[in-house]
C-alpha cells in the first residue's frame, strides 16, 4: 500500500480500475474501508440491469473468514441458530448468529467449500466474537477478506453469461449450491447465491486474476446487457426481495448501547432459522424463553398506497379508533418492477399481523415546502419480488 493510499484511508478492491473506467458520476463511499460506488451512471438504470439483463456488483469488501479444523462443524453449529450438520459440502447456508441473550449479532452466508472447510461471509467484522467462540475448540480462523476477490453476477441473463464463459456444471447448480471451476489456471468458486432475490451467482477468486476475470466476464456478457452497478441499485433490489441489511434494518447486537435496541431472530422474521432441536447454540436459552414469553418486536414488509417512498416514516396502527405510533420504517423504495410502494419496518407486538393494515406517516418536500400524508399500508408476508426463474434448475438462458 502506498503512502498516498494510506493518506486516503480507503482501500481499493482488485476490480477498482474497471469500475472507475465505467464510472460517470464519481460518487463513492467507504464500505468497510473499501472504495465502493454509490452508482456509476444512473442508479435506476443500473437497477433495471438486475431485473432485465445481468448486473455485476463488486462484493469484495464483504467480510470473509475461513474456518477449518476438526471442530469446524461443531464450532459453526454452536455459533449459528440453524442446524449446520445438514449443510453438506458444496452447499451454502444463510444463517444468523446471536449473543447469549439471543440478540442478533449479524446474518450472513456460510459456504461449505469442501469437507470440513467453511467460509463465513458477513457484513460486519466478527473476529473477536469468533475467537471467543473458538475457545476450547480445535478450529482455525483466518480472515480472508482481502485474499478473495468477489463479484455478484445477478439477473435473468446471468446464467447465459457465465455459461458462455464456459463454467462446467453450472446448469445443474441449484440455489444455495456452489462449485469449483477453473479459470485461467486458477480456482474459481461459483455459488448460486445473491442479494437480489433473482437468478444470480456470486463468483470468488484470487485477487491476482480479478481483472482478467472481469474482462472475460464482460466479453462473455457483451450480448447479454452486462452492466456494473453501485450500491444504490442493489439496495432497491434487496428491499424487493425482502432481505435485511445489518445496521439499517437492525443494529448488530455488539453495536447497541441502549437496552432494547438489539433484535432477536424472531423479531427479524428469521424464526425459521432457529432450530431448537439442537441441544446447544449461542442464544438458545434466551430464545427459548422469548418463544415462551413472546417477542417485543416484529419485522414487517409493507405494501403502501401511493407512490411516495416512506423513508424513515413512523408506523401507526388504529387502536380503538385512534392512531397509535407502533413502529418505524427502516428501508423503503418505489419498486419499479412490482410497481409498488414498498418498505421494511419494525413494529411493536402484537401489531403487524400479516394481512393487517397499518398506516405510515410520509413526509415529502415540494419546492421547499413539506407536506405529509398518512398512507395505508398492507402487511405482506411474502417477498415483493420472487420470480420462478430464481429457483429454476437448469436456469433459462433468456
Amino acid at each position, binding site marked *: 500500500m502506498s503512502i498516498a493510499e494510506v493518506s486516503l484511508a480507503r482501500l481499493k478492491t482488485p476490480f477498482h480500475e474497471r469500475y472507475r473506467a465505467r464510472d460517470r458520476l464519481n460518487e463513492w463511499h467507504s464500505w468497510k474501508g473499501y472504495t465502493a460506488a454509490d452508482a456509476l451512471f444512473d442508479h435506476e438504470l443500473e437497477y433495471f440491469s438486475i431485473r432485465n439483463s445481468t448486473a455485476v456488483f463488486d462484493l469484495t469488501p464483504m467480510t470473509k473468514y475461513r474456518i477449518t479444523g476438526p471442530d469446524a462443524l461443531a464450532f459453526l453449529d*454452536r455459533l449459528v441458530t440453524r442446524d449446520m450438520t445438514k449443510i453438506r459440502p458444496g452447499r451454502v447456508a444463510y444463517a444468523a448468529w446471536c449473543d*447469549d441473550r439471543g440478540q442478533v449479532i449479524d446474518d450472513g452466508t456460510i459456504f461449505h467449500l469442501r469437507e470440513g472447510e467453511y467460509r463465513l461471509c458477513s457484513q460486519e467484522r466478527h473476529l473477536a466474537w469468533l475467537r471467543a467462540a473458538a*475457545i476450547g*475448540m480445535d478450529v482455525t480462523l483466518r480472515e480472508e477478506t482481502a485474499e478473495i476477490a468477489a463479484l455478484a453476477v445477478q439477473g435473468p441473463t446471468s446464467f447465459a453469461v457465465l455459461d458462455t464463459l464456459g463454467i462446467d456444471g453450472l446448469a445443474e447448480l441449484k440455489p444455495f449450491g456452489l462449485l469449483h471451476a477453473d479459470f485461467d489456471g486458477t480456482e474459481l468458486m461459483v455459488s448460486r447465491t445473491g442479494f437480489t432475490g433473482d437468478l444470480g451467482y456470486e463468483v470468488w477468486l484470487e485477487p491476482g486474476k480479478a481483472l482478467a476475470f472481469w474482462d472475460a466476464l464482460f466479453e462473455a456478457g457483451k450480448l447479454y446487457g452486462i452492466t456494473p452497478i453501485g450500491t444504490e441499485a442493489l439496495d432497491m433490489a434487496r428491499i424487493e426481495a425482502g432481505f435485511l441489511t445489518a445496521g439499517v434494518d437492525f443494529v448488530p447486537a455488539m453495536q447497541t448501547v441502549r437496552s432494547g435496541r438489539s433484535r432477536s431472530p424472531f423479531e427479524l422474521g428469521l424464526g425459521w432459522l432457529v432450530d431448537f432441536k439442537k*441441544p446447544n*447454540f449461542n442464544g438458545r436459552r434466551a430464545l427459548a424463553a422469548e418463544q415462551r414469553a413472546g417477542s417485543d418486536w416484529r419485522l414487517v414488509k409493507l405494501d403502501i398506497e401511493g407512490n411516495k417512498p416512506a423513508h424513515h416514516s413512523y408506523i401507526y396502527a388504529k387502536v380503538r379508533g385512534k392512531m397509535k405510533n407502533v413502529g418505524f420504517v427502516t428501508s423503503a423504495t418505489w419498486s419499479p418492477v412490482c410497481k409498488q410502494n414498498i418498505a421494511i419496518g419494525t413494529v411493536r407486538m402484537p401489531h403487524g399481523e400479516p394481512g393487517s393494515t397499518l398506516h405510515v406517516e410520509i413526509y415529502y418536500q415540494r419546492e421547499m415546502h413539506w407536506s405529509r400524508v398518512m398512507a395505508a399500508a398492507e402487511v405482506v408476508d411474502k417477498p415483493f419480488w420472487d420470480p420462478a426463474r430464481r429457483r429454476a434448475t437448469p436456469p433459462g438462458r433468456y
Partner: protein
Amino acid sequence: MTDYYDAIVIGAGHNGLVCATLLAQAGRDVLVLEARDAVGGAACTAEFADGYSVSSVAHLLYGLQPEVLNDLGLKPELAADNLGTIALAEDGAHVRLRGDVAQGVSDADAAALRTFRSRMRRYAKLLARQMNRPPPRLGSSARGDLLALAKLGFDIRRLGRDAMRDFLRIVGMNIYDELEECFESPRLKGALALDAVLGTHLGPRSPNTILTWLHRHSANDGRLATPVGGMGNLGERLADLARGAGATILTGSPVQRVVVENGRATGVETADGTVYESLTIVSNADPKRTVMDLVGTRHFETGFVRRVHNIRMQGNAAKLHLALDGLPAVTGLEKRDFAERLVVAPDSDYVERAFNPAKYGEYSPEPVFEIVFPSFRDPTLAPAGKHVLSAIVQYAPHTLRAGWDDGARAAFERLCLDTLERYLPGLGKRVTSSELLLPADIEERYGMSGGHWHHGELTLDQFLFVRPVGGAAQYALPLDGLYLCGAGAHPGGDVAGAAGRNAALEILKRGKGA
C-alpha cells in the same frame, strides 16, 4: 457398568464434602469422586520428609464459617487456638498482635488498633451474612432475588448513616491508604497489610484489599487455629461426616468428563471409563476446570465461556516446608513464641515492593512470609525434639516470565532461606530437608487452575452476584443439572465451607432431579 445417584460431587475438597454431607443428610443418595488418594483437597496433611508432616496448602484455620459447623455439628479438634501474630523485625524489636491487642507499638497505635478492629468487625459481620447465603441474581424480577437484594441493602443501611458511608467508601479501596491514615508503626502496618494480600495477586496498594482483609476476618473475627494432625485431619473429619450421612466417597477416581446429553448433564465418566449417572452434578473443581476441561466449552454459550475464560486466577502464593532438627534462638523471641504465627512483612511498602515484580511475571527478590511451626503444639507432625516450619511465601507467580525451571526453583528457594535467615538468624543451620510448592505444583497436585487458593481472585468484579461470573452466581451453571460448590463460587476461598453449604442449600431448594 453404570450406577445412578441423586447427586454426584466431583472432588472431595472441604467444600465438596460439606455439600455432600448436607445433601446426604437431606436424604439424597450422594457419590463423591476424588482424583487423589486422600480426601480434603487443599485441606490436607502430607509427609514431605522422613517423619515430618505438614499441612500442604492451607496451614491455618480461620475461615471456617460457624454456620457450616452448626449445620454439620462439627467441632474441629484444635492443637492450638487463638494464635497471636508476631511481626518480625531484623533488630529484634518485634511487634505482637493478638485480637485487638498490640504490643511493641506506641499507645496511640494500640488505641488505633482497637478502634480499627471494632470498626472492621462490623463490616466483616455484614460480609459474613452475605457469605452465608446464595447471592441474588441481578436483573432478575424473581421474588427471592428481589428479597435477597433488599436484604443486602437493608444490612448495609442498618450499619447506620455514618458507618454505611464509611463502609461504602472503603470497601473497594486499597488497604495501604487506610493503614497510613490509622497507624504509625511500620511493623503493625506491614502485618495488617499482609493479611489483606495472602493468597491473592494483589499488593496492599491494589484496590479491593480492604475487601480481602474483611473476607479473611469474616468468620470468628479472623481468629487463628491449627487442627490436631494438621488440616488433613479436618478433611478426614468432614469425609467421616459425609460417610456417616450416607454418602459414598471414592478416592483415586479422577473424573475425566461430565457426560452431557441433549443439553443437560447426565453423569460423569472417570479415568477408568466408568460412567456414573446423575441428574445433579456438583463440581468442587474450579470454574475454569469445570467448564473448559470437565464439560467442554461447546456445551455452553460463547459469552459465558468468554467470561469464564477471563476469570483472573493466577496464583502467587508458594508454600515452603522445612524440616528442622531444632528451633533457632532468635533475639526478642522466647521459646513459646514459636507457637504463634510469625510474619515477615516489616512495613507495607515492603509488601508492595514484594508484589511489584509479580506484575511483570517475576518473583519477589524479598518475599513476604507467613510462618508457623505446627509441630510446636502438635508433636505428631515431627520426630521428638524436632520441628517443621510451614510458610506461605509471596510472591511467586504461577507463570514466571523466564519459566520455572530447576534453576529458577532453586534460586527462589535459596532466596527464601536467605530472607528468612535475616529475620530468624540460625534457622538455616537447622534445616535438614525442605519442600517448595510453587503455584504450578499446587495446580498439578490439587487440580486448581492457576494454583490460586481462592479458585479466582477475590475482587469486587468477581464477587457476590458476579462470582464466578455473571450468569452463574447461584451455583447453577447455564447447563441443566450442573452446579459449582467450590471456592470459585460465592463467597470464595479459604477453608470456609460456605460455598459448599450454600450450594447444597440451593440444590435442595430446587428439588430432586432439578
